[in-house]
């Protein structure tokens, strides 16, 4: 815990920084991450405020600029598909006011995430195996069969170690009650962890003094933990390349430098100390995967692949894909290569399946869900669809297999024409949409043009599963909707990020 004097001294420093926060007013009915409705900082999470008080406004502005320059210089960028300018790389806007999570809150989140990912792994094993949960009618069979991410041809294939979700990014929001709820699961190719690591790096450089006094849990173990988890799941017969003492070869497969998350692929390969490869560097021979090196072809045991299922093997999926490795699915089905995450995970983060995750937890683990979810309506169900269409102005409607904030209707702020258009889409393809009443996401003080203002945030923690179990990165990516009044935090829709501080135990 940061060095804090007696309560009186603490509020004094808060008062000194008060001019920065004068007029800070979170919207009514919203949980603010830092300030109580009374205007006092929440006990235990006032670190951010103390940080600002210590720095003073002028210095803070300079540090923000320094952070931006560092990120640009380091090429820590992403590309935006929607925009069509010459320079497609953009720095993911980084806000220097961190978002803090108390140790107590985090303990619940951590347990809840481990429980959830365990259940999802069990679900996927079951769906691609015996399908007990469908036989017992706990989840409608048609829902799984009709899911775009369900790859029926892979039924019966068991990946090494039985793990399918090696890396999960579970999006959480904080409701007005202060409770964390799961908004959505991402178990195909979740991204963003590189920003978590780089943001922390920038913060440490800028405000090292604050870190010295605080116990903010470290995030830099992630690449090491991920590497160990992936290595632990190499196919048995390939462990060691047949050579004693040799580690099985791990590669990161990227769609290439024009992919929006390319920086992250490269970053993780570097930090894990393994090769970054493109599809053209690999080939399949004898149902095994090989990589072209200057010493000739070498066997590959584990592929951390950031290419979607659809594009990953032109022999089986999209034949026009230039990003895939012909024969990869064959090698995978034979158990000759580990793919992280496994093929076919899309059925689990299908938004129409999301309402059933609590059911999965009860069915496979015989436990009650630790983390709640957002109330969700399936448009496929007649009664629910009617309700959604009648209340479109209050709903957030999402396409079931979309990501990045695309394919979404923000009912309360959309125009009549936009709502009508979306209503049509729902009627034409009810299975393709779910709706959720808009939740008042929590707000966090954010630096906007020299003034501190409340902006809505979410949290994406990262969960890694290996042969030895599941580990949760302390913290994760806090995304912030930078536009005033916006509820959409995705980078592609103009969002930014903050460093996330999970406090260590008070001792």
């Amino acid at each position, binding site marked *: 815990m940061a060095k804090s004097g007696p309560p009186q001294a603490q509020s004094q420093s808060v008062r000194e920084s008060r001019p920065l926060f004068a007029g800070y007013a979170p919207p009514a009915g919203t949980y603010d991450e830092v300030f109580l409705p009374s205007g006092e900082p929440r006990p235990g999470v006032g670190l951010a405020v103390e940080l600002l008080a210590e720095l003073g406004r002028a210095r803070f502005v300079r540090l923000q600029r320094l952070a931006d320059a560092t990120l*640009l*210089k*380091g*090429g820590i960028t992403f590309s935006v598909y929607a925009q069509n300018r010459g*320079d497609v790389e953009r720095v993911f806007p980084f806000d220097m006011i961190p978002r803090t999570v108390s140790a107590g809150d985090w303990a619940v989140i951590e347990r809840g995430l481990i429980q959830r990912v365990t259940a999802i792994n069990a679900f996927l094993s079951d769906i691609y195996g015996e399908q007990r949960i469908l036989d017992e009618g706990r989840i409608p069979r048609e829902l799984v069969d009709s899911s775009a991410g369900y790859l029926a041809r892979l039924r019966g294939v068991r990946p090494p170690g039985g793990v399918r979700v090696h890396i999960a990014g579970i999006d959480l929001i904080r409701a007005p009650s202060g409770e964390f709820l799961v908004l959505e699961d991402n178990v195909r190719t979740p991204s963003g962890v590189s920003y978590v690591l780089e943001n922390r790096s920038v913060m440490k450089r800028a405000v090292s003094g604050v870190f010295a006094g605080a116990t903010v849990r470290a995030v830099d173990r992630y690449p090491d933990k991920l590497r160990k988890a992936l290595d632990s799941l190499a196919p048995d017969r390939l462990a060691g390349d047949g050579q004693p003492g040799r580690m099985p070869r791990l590669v990161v497969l990227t769609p290439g*430098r024009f992919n929006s998350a390319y920086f992250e692929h*490269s*970053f993780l*390969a*570097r930090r894990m100390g393994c*090769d*970054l*490869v*493109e599809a*053209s*560097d690999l080939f399949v021979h004898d149902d095994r995967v090989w*990589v*072209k*090196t*200057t010493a000739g072809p070498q066997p590959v045991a584990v592929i951390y692949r950031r290419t979607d299922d659809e594009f990953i093997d032109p022999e089986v999926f999209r034949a026009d894909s230039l990003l895939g490795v012909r024969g990869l699915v064959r090698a995978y089905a034979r158990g000759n290569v580990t793919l992280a995450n496994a093929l076919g995970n899309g059925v689990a983060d299908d938004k129409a399946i999301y309402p059933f995750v609590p059911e999965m937890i009860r069915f496979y683990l015989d436990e009650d869900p630790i983390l709640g979810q957002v109330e969700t309506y399936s448009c496929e169900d007649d009664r629910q669809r009617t309700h959604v269409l009648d209340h479109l102005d209050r709903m957030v409607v999402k396409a079931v297999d979309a990501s990045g904030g695309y394919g979404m209707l923000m009912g309360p702020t959309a125009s009549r024409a936009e709502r009508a258009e979306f209503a049509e889409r729902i009627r034409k393809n009810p299975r393709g949409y779910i709706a959720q009443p808009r939740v008042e996401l929590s707000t966090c003080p954010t630096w906007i043009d020299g003034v501190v203002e409340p902006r809505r945030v979410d949290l994406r923690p990262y969960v890694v599963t290996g042969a030895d179990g599941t580990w949760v990165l302390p913290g994760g990516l806090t995304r912030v909707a930078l536009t005033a009044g916006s509820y959409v935090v995705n980078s592609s829709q103009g969002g930014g990020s903050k460093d996330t501080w999970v406090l260590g135990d008070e001792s």
Partner: protein
Amino acid sequence: MISRVAESCFWLHRYVERAENTARLLRVNRSFILDVSLPVGDRWAPAVIVAGEQDRLPEVLSPEAVDDGELVQDYMTWNDNNPVSLLNSIRWARENARTIREVISLEMWEAVNELWHWLQRGPGRRMYSGDRDAFYARIKAFAALFYGVCDNTLLREQPFDFMRLGMLLERTGQIARIIDVKHHAIGPTALDDTDSAIASAQWLALLRSCSATEVYFKRVRESPKGATVLPFLVLEDGFPRSIVHCLARAWEFMQRIR
């Protein structure tokens, strides 16, 4: 290492070396034509020929453009249709660097990334207009930083070997071309002991194009002429910018790679 990555290492250094040579060539040529009065057709054409752009420049600009120093410099520095323009060399150096981030050090990446943004976003253009010499000096400084960081931070493994190989082969080619062009420009009296003022100045300019002036005078105690300058630039093993030196080191790296 991944074959494609080896190729990128090789080309990254070729492009950096190419950019530095372009900058040096243009800078030397500028000061050279101030020292000596040459016929208009001989002032900038040699630099264009060294770059191999003698056919494309007249097409992209105009047949007369090759005689206009400002147009030639602009073409050789900024023109997007010129595959060997300085801007394009840095662009491709950066693209290669971007795809092999996991192999090069952060400082190497930052050096080329910073230079790219400087060129692309305005400050480069302003210095080019305001202080041409300082502009070319900046490119040279970048190369020195880039090689310095490379030498001082990279493990002596295959990526490093491919990088040095690329740099040495590009350098060899550049030296050979510079000598060749100047040789043609100076004329068939190349190896004579002719001591005319123009010939002298041209040999001196040739040395400067290869950053060889001071080392030449240290080693050869005669005023520069064909019979002394050419052997020095081709055969002097102790000089890092001689053809023999570059080829010998390139050969060593190829052996290491094998």
